[in-house]
């Protein structure tokens, strides 16, 4: 059986975790939710760091977590699970150098268990120059890079990451995200990634599981879920669709990049750092998308694409969230956007489901 099955129940005081999940065994799965929603509890249960009722089934192996009293012997201890874990704080061993930290797990594997090589991990996370330094002398971002490399060096079959960026300032975050994206692209290890940051979900996640009060309230592919109206992991101002585009070319004079959408249309975005012909994920916040009945003239909006209204919902008073599907001459494309407009506009333009409109996307609002 492929896939990851995770089934856990635990009760601590007022909090109850109760999940039964079937997760893809490739790519990045984001466990997403507010603090106190049980994401970390679930991740710790998967690692075996906490005892509770339940188990994981991962590639034919069952990792048992129950273990009270008589069934104690069934519990599979952390060090026997084929995982690696990156904690919120880097938690480097203070008594070891960077090299010693990296070697800690690596030297506990036999030669044939080492599928990720020392040089590869050191190079991936750019650690060549700091191997002989002590953890205390590193910056927060550098420490977390060492922690990620240390985790990779146990050649895990499953990588668990608990908000690895949340303890960092925004500069260190920006420094680490490209490393994570690169791992995501090049490394064939499934990752379960706990976060409450929309930005990290948008840039890294393939699959999203949304938790609330210890229960799963939504799950699905990142692209479907973020552009869905009924299951919206991101509420309010943060709502927005996720699109996988390809960089066609850069316009350095105007500091723009031209992107090709999956349906073949072109849009302009602020200059991206990646090179031409590479795939990028673009988040289009709903607040940056407006609707017009005709192709407008004399507007500053650069991206104007034909679309059809699929659905709408009235959440906040006075505002409407509209789900749009882009259209080409060939018809529907399956590429969906969210647009937030005022309720007044919705009524004034006489908008309704099935109507063909023009989606106007402010290019400066596009987020990597």
């Amino acid at each position, binding site marked *: 059986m492929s896939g990851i099955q995770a089934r856990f129940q635990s009760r601590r005081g007022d909090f109850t975790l109760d999940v039964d999940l079937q997760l893809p065994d490739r790519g990045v799965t984001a466990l997403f939710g507010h603090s106190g929603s049980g994401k970390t509890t679930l991740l710790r249960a998967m690692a075996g760091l906490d005892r509770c009722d339940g188990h994981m089934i991962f590639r034919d192996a069952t990792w048992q977590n129950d273990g009270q009293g008589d069934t104690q012997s069934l519990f599979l*201890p952390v*060090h026997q699970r084929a*995982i690696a874990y990156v904690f919120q704080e880097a938690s480097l061993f203070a008594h070891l150098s960077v090299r010693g930290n990296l070697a800690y797990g690596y030297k506990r594997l036999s030669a044939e268990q080492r599928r990720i090589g020392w040089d590869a991990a050191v190079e991936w996370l750019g650690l060549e120059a700091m191997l002989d330094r002590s953890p*205390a002398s590193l910056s927060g971002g550098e420490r977390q890079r060492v922690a990620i490399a240390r985790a990779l060096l146990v050649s895990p079959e499953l990588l668990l990451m608990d908000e690895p960026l949340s303890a960092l300032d925004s500069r260190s975050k920006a420094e680490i995200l490209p490393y994570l994206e690169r791992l995501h692209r090049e490394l064939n290890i499934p990752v379960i990634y706990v976060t409450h940051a929309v930005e990290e979900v948008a840039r890294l996640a393939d699959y999203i599981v949304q938790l609330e009060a210890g229960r799963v309230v939504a799950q699905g592919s990142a692209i479907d879920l973020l552009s869905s109206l009924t299951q919206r992991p991101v509420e309010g101002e943060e709502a927005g669709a996720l699109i996988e585009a390809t960089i066609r070319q850069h316009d350095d004079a105007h500091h723009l990049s031209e992107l090709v959408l999956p349906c073949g249309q072109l849009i302009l975005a602020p200059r991206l750092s990646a090179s031409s012909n590479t795939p990028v994920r673009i988040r289009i916040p709903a607040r940056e998308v407006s609707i017009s009945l005709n192709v407008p003239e004399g507007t500053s909006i650069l991206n104007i694409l034909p679309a059809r209204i699929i659905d709408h919902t009235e959440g906040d008073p006075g505002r409407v969230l509209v789900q749009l599907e882009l259209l080409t001459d060939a018809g529907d494309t399956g590429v969906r956007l969210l647009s937030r407009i005022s309720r007044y506009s919705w009524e004034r333009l006489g908008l309704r489901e099935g109507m063909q409109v023009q989606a106007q996307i402010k290019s400066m609002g596009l987020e990597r």
Partner: protein
Amino acid sequence: MDWQPILQPVWLTLKLATLTTLLLLLVGTPIAWWLSQTTCRFKHAISAVVALPIVLPPTVLGFYLLFFLGPNGPGGAFTQWLGLGTLPFTFAGLVVASVFYSLPFVVQPMQNAFEAMGQRPLEVAATLRASPWDRFVSVALPLARPGFLTAMVIGFAHTVGEFGVVLMMGGNIPGETRVLSVAIYDHVETMEYAQAHLLSAGMVGFAFLVLLGLYLVNGRIDRQVRA
């Protein structure tokens, strides 16, 4: 001056303190580790038992040890059954008494060091494939090193400085149980002030150097950790 009665207690004291410190490391480490990790509901009761010698007058401890290990006590019956005779008024008896007496002073710094480290480094080590024993040796012990250093120095110094327990348990047998503190007491009793001065001044110097060394070393480790 005859140096033999001066040097013999010094040598005996050093031997006693060294042996006691080594035994305390062996006995104290598992107790400190257990106390730092356990969630057992008897934890506090056991902590209190270990800490008793801090509060009790040494004479009380010495009296009970004497009673327990004496020819009519259960411990004494056991050692006699083993063919070891009885422990009171022997060097071995002094070692046993010193271990009990100094135990809390060794367990507490070690336990504090283990607790200060927190669970996180151990959890990290577990996710890096280290078994429980491996985690203890490769993570807990090195991280608790300053605590161990403190524990050893305090355990050694405390044993050197003990008096009441020694007097109750060991008496005053030259070469066997006549340690420094007892020798000083004896010299004062017999008005041999020159000898008493010599030994006492030596003790003051020793105590100062031990504490100075401890503070210097811990200060350095502190700076390393904070750097």
